[in-house]
């Protein structure tokens, strides 16, 4: 068997952490080095549940690892990434990359200086349907892409996701970046301008739970992103990702999580969807690990994470002023 990469899980704060831990345990090209969490009780329970080693300190985990997946609160991405880089450990950061453009830049710079790779968790790029669309666009089959209507609505995740100090915002910070990354990757173009309407209408939070972005890309295409936590508690699944892509030669609809059984569950008094499509977390972490093992650039890097974060940051600024915000104005 070929070499396995030693990978640890840094923090268990994120809702995706259990799935990340399971994936790290199961991937054959990974040796799961264990978990460190700033919340000791939570981290120890997680380590026990996933049959992995508990590390009292981040340094201990980093010393045992060649790479870490950072699944902390959004605001902690920077400090964990900088600690990993200082130890020469590669990083796969949960999304969004950071909560400010300055933090995102600092993370990229820290990893560059240390000679380690920085990846960002955008699993939508691992969807076979999205990859098929990317190939079709690249081949010219759809003609020039003129517009995209993207949605990434979800249920309110609860916990720290509604706390601006830890999450950096609400639904916009949580969900804009998946769609923004998919759009710029598919169209092969960069965001130039963002307008946004936000509101806190459903859960009584201090952060927005509804958000609708209208964006211009540099090459003239336009796109909208619905990032709202609009799925009711009775919705049959957590949410979803859809892309309605209009090209000059064709129109394509992608519903990334459409492959699901409908389960009418009397014990829960509701219907729910049971997905059976490819596991995107497995494919995403696999692609990251394979790149590190092969000494190739990771497929989704810190710059990609920063570009997507800029869209979210621009949305907050636009919503304050009711005016479109140029992405270039965030970089001065």
């Amino acid at each position: 068997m070929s070499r396995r990469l030693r990978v640890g899980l840094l923090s268990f704060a994120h809702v995706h952490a259990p799935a990340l831990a399971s994936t790290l345990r199961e991937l054959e090209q990974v040796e799961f080095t264990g978990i460190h969490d700033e919340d000791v009780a939570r981290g120890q329970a997680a380590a026990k549940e996933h049959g992995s080693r508990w590390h009292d300190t981040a340094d201990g985990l980093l010393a045992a690892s060649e790479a870490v997946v950072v699944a902390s609160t959004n605001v902690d991405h920077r400090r964990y990434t900088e600690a990993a880089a200082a130890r020469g450990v590669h990083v796969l950061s949960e999304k969004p990359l950071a909560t400010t453009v300055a933090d995102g830049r600092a993370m990229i710079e820290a990893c560059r200086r240390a000679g380690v790779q920085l990846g960002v968790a955008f699993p939508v790029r691992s969807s076979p349907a999205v990859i098929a669309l990317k190939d079709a666009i690249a081949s010219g089959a759809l003609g020039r892409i003129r517009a995209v209507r993207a949605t990434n609505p979800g249920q309110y995740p609860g916990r720290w996701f509604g706390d601006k100090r830890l999450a950096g915002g609400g639904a916009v910070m949580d969900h804009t970046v998946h769609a923004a990354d998919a759009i710029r990757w598919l169209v092969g173009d960069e965001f130039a301008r963002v307008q946004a309407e936000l509101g806190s209408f459903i859960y009584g939070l201090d952060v927005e739970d509804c958000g609708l972005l209208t964006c211009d890309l540099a090459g003239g295409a336009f796109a909208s992103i619905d990032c709202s936590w609009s799925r009711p508690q009775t919705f049959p699944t957590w949410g979803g990702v859809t892309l309605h892509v209009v090209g000059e030669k064709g129109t394509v609809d992608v519903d990334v999580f459409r492959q699901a059984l409908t389960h009418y569950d009397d014990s829960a008094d509701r219907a729910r969807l049971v997905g059976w499509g490819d596991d995107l977390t497995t494919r995403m972490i696999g692609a990251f690990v394979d790149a590190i093992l092969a000494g190739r650039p990771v497929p989704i890097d810190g710059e990609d994470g920063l570009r997507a974060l800029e869209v979210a940051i621009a949305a907050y600024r636009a919503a304050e002023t009711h005016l479109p915000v140029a992405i270039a104005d965030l970089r001065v």
Partner: protein
Amino acid sequence: MGVLGAGFAGAMHAHSAMGLDDVQVVAIAALPLDQGAALAQECGARLATAEQICAADDIDLVVVATPTHLHAEYATAAAKAGKHVFCEKPIARTREQAEEMVRACDAAGVTLAVGHVVRYFPEYQRAKQLLDDGTLGRPAIATLVRGNFSVGSAREWYLDSAKSGGVVLDLMLHDLDTVRWWFGEPSRVYARRFTGRAGLEYALATIRYDDRPIVHIEGSWAEHAGFRTGFELRGDRGMLVHDSRATSPLTVQSPAGPAGPAMMATPTLAESPYRRQLRDLFARIGRGERPLVDGHEGLRSLALGLAVIESADSGNVIEWKAPA
């Protein structure tokens, strides 16, 4: 009833009127005239010019189903001749034209109704009811979509924005009117649109209300598989979802495939929304009441459509003030 125009809308209204008690389609006008011959024969109506229809003693109401940029000219002529006017949406191509129509009908003391037929579609009426009775709670965010293949491939005047107003005034206007009907007058509009070759046109609009809700609307002439509508309406107590592609109670397949001839009619309601619209209009005229969507209301929805176009073309956020 006399019908000006024998295209899609003229034929729809003429056919819809045929099953109504106390309503008779007596004359059809078209340009050139013989293009209305088939429709006139189907309705047992005579072919006549627009001037003859306006002057006819046996006509009480004129349906204006001409290309959009001609609505004002014909509606004004009909009003001056003392006829009630039912005008297909949009009320007109420009705000000035619409204002002229409203003035002419008010001065003549005749009814001016505008065919915002979505207000007669039961799925949209149900949503309105669940909003109004509080079932959904306060509306938070809504998305409405409406798409079709490019109608410009069937009728060339649609391709000329100066005549039709493109996908925004012809298609998205249904949802702009719906949003006004559901939520009232918004406060801001931001939009984008593009026009491609062969009638391809697509627009996205974001409509913000003072406080709430946020509304997103898609109007598409890039829906190559054919007509569809949908909406998703989230209030703070629940969410409604409509998708026309998932609600047809009748699906027919033939060995010839999708290109084969239609084997059977596929009605989905006992009475079509178009007929309900005409039935309601005639009943209201009979009772001396205003139509459900009068000229002023049609003008306000047109103005919102024009604001969407202005935003898309200028790139700016448009602060919205509804015409009185």
